[in-house]
């Protein structure tokens, strides 16, 4: 893609995603193209912005077509609001939506997010990117002109065309000779981070809630991986006891049993202490639960958090789903604590729709 169109394209994508210019938002239409992939019809999302203009309404309007047709026969599918958009020629049946890869989705999610308070620490690094001037192209701003290469090329051309005279060695570059420095994005090591995911898999969590929790954890994970290279991850699941698991188990475990959140916090503390000393690592922890903790366990959790975990980590995110059984009162305790500790963030996720908002709450920039 040329650099020029790339800019206009990115600008358009930003407007569509609502990151700039709220006054164009109302003109965004979520159109689609109907395409084919193998034997399936697929819908290719095609957002468009239609600037308002003086136009005719549909009442009394019409046109001319060609082919077999009888008067009175409908040409198009009925339209919802009677506005004279394109003829609806979408085929029936089920249509899959394609288009975005997971990386792209993470990208969309990601531009507004950041790992807050990340600091350069340690030697083993996470990576962000930086522009580096490492290549040459034939167009560019004059300020980036490569002097030596330009004159070399001009000299070569003059010799080839016979206009160079050794006794009068004047070399004048013309436009075609000019060479400009150009840049590449190169990954640049910056700081190190570890993310600790903790998930409540106790019996009080229904499948529906586990799904919400997993989706949220998955997207946070995906986003972080897309934006920060080389982040270490630790997965912990807990019911009445906590254990460290691998990624696959984390996303697929079904457990049941009581809930003792403190076990997970304690395990997290141990892991951080042993493997990720806070002086070398940026530590982030996310905990997902239905907030239905064993009553006696709550003070212990608060103590652990306040005295052990929060002082050592950059951010603790707590996301709570609705609980069909319990009171979900753990959130209240957390909120209380959050008022004194600014690196503790609480978020409620009542249903699937709230996931995105919740992620934004946990990872919003500028904290």
């Amino acid at each position, binding site marked *: *893609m*040329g650099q*020029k*169109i790339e*800019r*206009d*394209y*990115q*600008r*358009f*994508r930003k*407007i569509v995603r609502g990151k*700039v*210019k709220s006054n*164009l938002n109302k*003109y965004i239409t979520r159109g689609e*193209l109907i*395409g*084919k*992939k193998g034997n399936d019809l*697929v819908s*290719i999302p*095609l957002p*468009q*912005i239609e*600037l*308002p*203009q*003086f*136009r*005719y*309404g*549909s*009442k*009394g*309007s*019409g*046109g*001319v*077509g*060609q*082919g077999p*047709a*009888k*008067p*009175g*026969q*409908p*040409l*198009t*599918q*009925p*339209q919802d609001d*009677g*506005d*004279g958009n394109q*003829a609806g020629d979408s085929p029936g049946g089920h249509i899959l939506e394609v288009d975005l890869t997971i990386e792209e989705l993470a990208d969309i999610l990601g531009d507004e997010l950041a790992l807050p308070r990340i600091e350069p620490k340690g030697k083993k690094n996470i990576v962000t990117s930086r522009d580096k001037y490492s290549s040459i*192209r*034939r*167009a560019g701003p004059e300020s980036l002109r490569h002097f030596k290469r330009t004159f070399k090329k001009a000299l070569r051309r003059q010799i080839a065309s016979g206009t160079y005279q050794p006794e009068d060695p004047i070399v004048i570059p013309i436009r075609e000779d000019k060479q400009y420095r150009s840049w590449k994005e190169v990954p640049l090591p910056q700081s190190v981070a570890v993310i600790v995911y903790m998930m409540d898999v106790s019996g009080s969590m229904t499948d529906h809630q586990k799904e919400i929790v997993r989706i949220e954890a998955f997207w946070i994970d995906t986003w972080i991986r897309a934006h920060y290279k080389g982040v270490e991850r630790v997965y912990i699941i807990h019911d009445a006891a906590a254990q460290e698991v691998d990624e696959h188990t984390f996303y697929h475990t079904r457990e049941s049993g009581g809930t003792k959140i403190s076990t997970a916090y304690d395990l997290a503390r141990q892991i951080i202490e042993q493997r990720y000393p806070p002086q070398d690592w940026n530590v982030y922890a996310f905990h997902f639960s239905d907030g239905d903790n064993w009553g006696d366990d709550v003070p212990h959790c608060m103590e652990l958090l306040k005295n052990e975990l929060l002082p050592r980590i950059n951010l603790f995110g707590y996301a709570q789903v609705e609980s069909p059984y319990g009171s979900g009162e753990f959130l209240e305790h957390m909120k209380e604590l959050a008022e004194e500790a600014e690196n503790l963030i609480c978020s409620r996720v009542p249903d699937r729709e709230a996931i995105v908002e919740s992620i934004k709450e946990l990872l919003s920039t500028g904290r």
Partner: protein
Amino acid sequence: MSLNQTRYDTRLTAELRRLQLEIEGYAREYGLDFFETIFEVLDADDLNEVAAYGGFPTRYPHWSFGMQYEELKKSYEYGLSKIYEMVINNDPCYAYLMRCNHVVDQKLVMAHVYGHCDFFKNNQYFAHTNRKMMDEMANHGTRIRHYAEKYGEDEVETFMDRCMSVDDLIDIHSPAIKRRSTTSRYDFSPEPADQARSAIRFKSKGYMDAYVNPPDVLKREEEEFRKQEAEQQVRFPESPEKDVLLFLIEHAPLKGWQRDVLSIIRDEAYYFAPQAQTKIMNEGWASYWHSTIMTKHALTPSEVVDYCDHHCGTMAPYRGRINPYKLGIELFRDIEERWNTGRFGKDYEECDDLETKRRWSLDLKLGRQKIFEVRRNHCDVTFIDEFLTADFCKEQGYFSFNYDEHGHNYVVESREFKKVKERLLFNLTNFGKPFIYVVDGNYRNRGELLLKHEHLGIDLKLPYAQDTLANLQALWSRPVHLQTVVEEKPMLLSYDGSEHSNKTLGEHDDPRRHASGKAR
């Protein structure tokens, strides 16, 4: 111009170059007359980029081109559509070819391109366009980039969005017509025809005078005249102005850079207007020539099937709208046939005997000459108006359709020639967009802007009209009003910068009553 950033050679390969010379030769033999044509061969991605910029790689930056690009790119990637060619109305003409296309496609496209080039150069409606537009567009780009740097990207972009929302409010016939009188508006010498303006007195004998010319009636009429005259003097603009953009450039309180941006957008709107005005003819003409050149000369036997496949794909009729390629080529062929056989003029029209008409053949051989004349003098509206015949319409199977309010969809209306032609012409006139005029730049003597929609039977789409009005208001700074008709009732839509209001007007203000000949 060259696409500096491409990593490959955009010039024609030796083989394509040879084919280009061959096809150019045929085109010249047939009497096509064109600017020098420079072909560039581009990859799909680059071609999509150029196409997104309307053919001008150096165009000013704007998100709308990014939007175009996404659509082209996605349709191409999913195999829904691809661009075969682009031709730019410029001297020299630039034409872009798709690098991955088959040789037979490239030949077809080249022949097609020479048709377009000839049309650009010779059609009257293109006469006013800037033939150095490639350079001009680059200048526009530089200027707008400069403003964006100096005044802020967001600020310039917001302003451009507003301009683009009204960029169709131009007077497409103005390049050919002198709209404004040559006498100055600032000439205040009293008109010599002063007494002609006084009330009309009928001739009468003295004793009858009070009855034939009742004094109170005379007085009333005189007052009326005076009022009209006073109105005439303060009216601004003098006559309704269809070139709303020009009016804004001349009279809106804009900053220097804003005026320049607006004039850039207006210039480009005028440059592109003839292409929309002649879409059917232009495509028809180019298709006529690619088909003539390919089938009579350029095709080799092994290429016939591929050629037919491609040609048919382009010419396939659409159900829900006109295919300009199809209508154009068929109508040109019909005209050629009619003028070859003498099926035109008084004798033919007035002949009552169907059998005679069917066998009508005068062997005039005027067809070729006629179509060249048509391509010089017509635009789509006049082309259809003059040459679409009932027989042609029936043969091609055209039908008209209209909007069914109950079913919220479009329904086939009729196969009647009159109806078809009517619908076709309506959708071509003023690009099928409403006629909007500036009627008063000092409305209510408060510096407000009054526009009028000349209602031709179809209401405006209201939410759009209101939003557009808001954009006009932002350009004009004072409140803006639009007279229109909504569901048979005259209405005044207003926007004062913070709030929309709609007011039903009395009979007196009905814009339909004032839809005078003057305006057109």
